[in-house]
């Protein structure tokens, strides 16, 4: 469960300039559902999700993740959260198994729990071939699978994915989406950000369109298409953001 209420983030660039990266955004995601955050480059997706992951402090507003306030209980939030973003790379000099063990330990798992969990994730994600190789020898797809496993190692109830298929080929992207669907079917609360329209249609139960930091439209993909009388998500998105291209991010 994620509840976001009037979430706002201001960045101060230099002395004067202020960037309102996220502007009074409110939404909620339910367990067993994938909430898609759709927005152009610089729309504020990553900033919003970083606030949910307690990496950034909200300037205003509130957010609760799995029932805990991101401002006052950040440790409890992170213990119930798996966060995967373009910025969350892996340690190149560790093997995949060591990486999973490290994050498992930081999440308070015992060595026995870790080894069964690693076994299960390796089977589910088909990682057997490279489990004991160093990450810096991996292909992009192997790295992303390992990152997914890292996100899931402590079996969190809330998952946040920030453009997880960025730079992946069709097959790798499909594999990632499949495992995210499995997480939904297991009853997890999932937020999925992307600027790829087709992914949203394929994957998300509810979509929020974010533009210049503001949530401009929300609904199921079908409802959004109907509301903007569009044939596909792209048409709906362009109508929702009012035809104006995003300012340079």
């Amino acid at each position: 469960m994620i509840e976001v209420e009037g979430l706002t983030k201001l960045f101060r660039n230099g002395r004067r300039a202020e960037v309102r990266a996220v502007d009074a955004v409110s939404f909620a995601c339910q367990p067993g559902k994938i909430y898609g955050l759709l927005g152009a480059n610089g729309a504020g997706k990553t900033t919003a999700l970083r606030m949910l992951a307690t990496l950034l402090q909200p300037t205003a507003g509130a957010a609760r993740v799995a029932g805990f306030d991101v401002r006052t209980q950040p440790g409890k939030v992170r213990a119930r959260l798996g966060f995967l973003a373009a910025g969350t790379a892996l340690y190149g000099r560790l093997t995949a198994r060591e990486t999973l063990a490290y994050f498992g330990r930081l999440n308070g798992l015992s060595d026995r729990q870790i080894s069964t969990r690693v076994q299960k994730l390796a089977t589910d994600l088909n990682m057997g071939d490279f489990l004991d190789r160093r990450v810096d020898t991996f292909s992009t797809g192997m790295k992303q699978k390992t990152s997914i496993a890292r996100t899931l190692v402590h079996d969190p109830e809330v998952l946040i994915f920030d453009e997880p298929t960025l730079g992946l080929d069709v097959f790798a992207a499909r594999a990632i989406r499949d495992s995210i669907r499995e997480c939904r079917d297991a009853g997890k609360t999932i937020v999925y950000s992307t600027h790829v329209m087709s992914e949203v249609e394929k994957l998300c139960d509810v979509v929020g369109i974010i533009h210049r930091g503001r949530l401009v439209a929300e609904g199921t993909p079908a409802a959004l298409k109907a509301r903007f009388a569009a044939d596909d998500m792209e048409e709906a998105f362009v109508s929702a953001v009012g035809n104006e291209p995003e300012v340079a991010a």
Partner: protein
Amino acid sequence: MNWHNVWTVFAKELRDTIRDRRTLISTLVLPMLAMPLILLGVGSVAYKSFAKAQAEVPQVAILGGESSPAVREALAAHTKLAVVPAPEGWRQQIADKQLRAAVEIPNGFDAALARGEPATVRIYHYDGELRSGLAVSEVRRFFGAYRDKQVAARLAGRGLPASFVKPFDVRTENVAPPEKVGGNAIGGLIPYVFILFCFAGALYPAIDLTAGEKERGTLETILCSPVGRTELVLGKFLLVLTASLVTVVCSLASMGLSALFLQHLASGGALAHGAVAGAGAAPTLPRIDPLGLLAVGALVVPVAALFSSLLLALSLFAKSAKEAQSYASPLVLVVLLPAIMSLLPGVELNARLALVPVLNLSLVSKELVSGVWNWWHLALILGSSCLYAAAGLAFCVRMFNRESVLFRA
């Protein structure tokens, strides 16, 4: 505070660091190789050139004195000098190091001596040049002996005892224990080594664990795990501190070994040939109080902690390892300044200086290796250093809690 997490972070960073060849080279290999290379290289080159210069019979030109055959003959008979007639352009030849020195015998020197009139012998040399200096000493020694002979003859002629011109003797004798002699010579050098390697050992891991992680994108990964910021900082800090101390210990061990080796070489080797028999005893290493050295080692720990936390905080601010390096490199000078200041004559430890970080360590190590234990100063130094280290660590934790530092645009 969850110490299990601190340990987990430390263990992971240790494994990561050991697998990083560049860090290993900068913390282990370089200091281990640098000290023997510096000591053996500089030592043996200096030793060889000195021995060679001493073995050489210096060429000395003679100017004038045609009317004084006695002194000329005595000079020519002196085996430790090769006397040659002054060539054309002898000044230039001395400057060009072809000729070591020139001696000018004034006109009518022999006759002046016989009459008991004053006369001046002039020596021309290359100031500061080792071999020219050795030649001058030899010429001076010759003329000193020559003068003594004249004095003895004059005294005998007047029936006076030798003590007539030498009513009393002055002798100096060293009463300081050998450690203290060593303390002044080597004691100034030891803090250099400690402080420099302490800093150098912390530098690379500190950058790699902060700016390096930012650059590789792993910082955000660890920040979104449940590990607390303070635990994360402590784990990283302990790794950097370990690297710093390991570097100090390695460099010290290799320095000790190469010094021993050098001493062995000097006492058992070339010196025994007697080429420099006149130079006195073989240059034995000044003895250092081992307990004092141990105490210096203990006092280094808080300084290493201060360096580690400051370097971590500073390089966390940078966006890339390269940027961090450009922040940290000028710091080497700041760090070395107190060490250099402690070498200035007259700068002695007092209660006020005991509170100046780094400088206090430099000053106290001079005393400690000479076996001087001033407990009041030691307590002040240890207390203040620990305080500075704690402040540095607190500052580091603060930096790790600032999102404008972690996510600098």
